[in-house]
């Protein structure tokens, strides 16, 4: 478990460093991206997805095993549901208003940006509201229905 924690921190540190270097943490940079005034972020994003998309398929084809789990590199995918559209639309509004998304918020905290504090508090509250909404139907389900449909409300393939 300790090795997993150390690896996770190191991967996150690399991620946070790169977000900072690319100035993702600057709301004006994100605003320029969303107003289609600066192609930088779009080019970066497309490159990252394309590189990972190709490499993951090569890893899978070569049956490479994960270093810490020993399992073959693999992933599950989900079909689109209503929550993916509704949730993403709500997220998109928050992203456009603040010009910051969750990764850069964490990197802003690391850089000591004071305005990240109220934003981070809101993110935590929003996650708590989402968790409570997920839990609510399970509590109000009739016993017979709950017995027929056990298990988590959200699919296990959540990538978050």
């Amino acid at each position: 478990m300790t090795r997993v924690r150390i690896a996770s921190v190191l991967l996150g540190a690399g991620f946070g460093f790169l977000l900072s270097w690319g100035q993702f943490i600057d709301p004006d940079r994100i605003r320029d991206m969303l107003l289609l005034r600066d192609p930088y972020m779009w080019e970066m994003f497309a490159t990252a997805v394309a590189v990972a998309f190709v490499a993951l398929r090569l890893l899978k084809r070569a049956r490479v095993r994960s270093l810490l789990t020993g399992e073959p590199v693999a992933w599950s995918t989900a079909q689109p549901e209503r929550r993916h559209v509704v949730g993403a639309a709500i997220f998109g509004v928050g992203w456009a208003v603040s010009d910051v998304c969750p990764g850069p918020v964490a990197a802003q905290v690391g850089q000591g940006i004071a305005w990240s504090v109220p934003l981070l508090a809101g993110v935590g509250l929003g996650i708590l509201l989402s968790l409570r909404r997920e839990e609510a139907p399970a509590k109000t389900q009739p016993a017979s229905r709950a017995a027929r449909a056990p298990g988590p409300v959200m699919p296990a393939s959540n990538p978050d």
Partner: protein
Amino acid sequence: MTLLHRPDPFVLGLLLGVVVIAAFVVLNERVGVVGGFADFVERVTGRRSALGWKAWFVVGVVGGGLLFRLLAGAPTFRHGFGWLTRNLDGGLVAVVLVVAGVAIGYGAKTAGGCTSGNGLGGCATGSRASLTATGTFMATAIAVSFAIKAFT
């Protein structure tokens, strides 16, 4: 080239792609940040007994920001906080940021990921759910940004 200047977008994209790949090679997991924040919320509210790997990933992101700040010698951040501090008073900015944060946290958790989890990790796996979510939040954010620009 110094750390205070952005690298070529294709170089930075390649490096971020390597982080996504490394998460699979090392942990067999998909990168994601809002999931890490959710781990902390679940731990604090007694919904889980221990922090998951994503929470430690977020700890690393915070550390990466700090490391960058120390090595660069200055923040990669212009004065204020974008359009908000140019148009609103400080107290109101804080309120707007809390409300925006609620939308970010609630929406990303409901959609199963943010720009990292759905946008980078999910799209790289070819998940249709992630592609749908990513297209939706990007289109929404672009539309809302133009609406904000029209009113400010």
